[in-house]
């Protein structure tokens, strides 16, 4: 059995009405570093790749449609198309992550941190205790 020691313990973020979610706040920017936007992103290891609202990418000056396309399909078969662009994600404690984010070409309300993010950081959940543990390295 492997024992993992984590560097950070993070409480689930409160939503309204007392609901809590595993969420991280990031500053997102492109390699040009001219524009940035601060966003919240939900940890979702059921999602293969990190997915964001396309308008957030456009606000960074990205030519959204020039990105390589990726299709996301849900368990029910509902799908959406996204365009892939490299970005920097900066967290208060965890540091900088360089990630290819898929920017949805249709409106979505949540930014999801997928398994590509989990590949950069070790994360362990304690759902009953509404917290998770993170070490910002693979």
């Amino acid at each position, binding site marked *: 059995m492997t024992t993992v020691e984590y560097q950070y313990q993070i409480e689930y973020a409160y*939503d309204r009405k007392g609901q809590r979610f595993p969420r991280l706040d990031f500053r997102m920017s492109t390699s040009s*570093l001219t*524009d940035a936007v601060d966003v919240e992103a939900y940890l979702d290891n059921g999602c293969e790749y990190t997915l964001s609202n396309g*308008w957030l990418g*456009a606000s960074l000056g990205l030519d959204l449609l020039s990105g390589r396309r990726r299709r996301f399909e*849900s368990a029910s078969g509902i799908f959406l198309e996204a365009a892939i662009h490299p970005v920097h994600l900066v967290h208060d404690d965890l540091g900088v992550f360089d990630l290819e984010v898929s920017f949805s070409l249709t409106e979505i309300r*949540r930014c999801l941190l997928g398994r590509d993010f989990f590949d950069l950081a070790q994360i362990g959940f304690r759902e009953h205790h509404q917290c998770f543990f993170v070490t910002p390295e693979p």
Partner: protein
Amino acid sequence: MPSRTLTIEVPPAEARAYETATPEQQRRVDDALRGRFRELMRTLPPVSQAPEPVPSQAHEAPALQPPRRHKEIAWRRAHEAELETYAGQWVVLEGETIVAHGKKPAEVLERAKGQGVRIPYIFYVEELDPDVAMMGL
């Protein structure tokens, strides 16, 4: 063409003496300074070999600084009832002030930037329904 500046500091007493010196004395001082300047220039590497900026300097760009939104997150927790009025909308919060909100994130971001917010903190206020469970997509 790349350039750089080399500064030679002259002690104040010497500078004052230069002001009252004869033209011949000033010429000798000028020659000495030019010689010192050439000597210093020889000790510097060519511009093309000048050291690159260290990577950490690149991380000083605002876009790579941690967001540090503690004030905004605390405000959101303390003003849940007020946020209820923005359910179904995107909101840009700066400190304790909602600077823009609306159903279209592009318009909300544009309005926030129009009000001088360089790096907007944007979030979606979900319409919470106890009978609805959220999934990723």
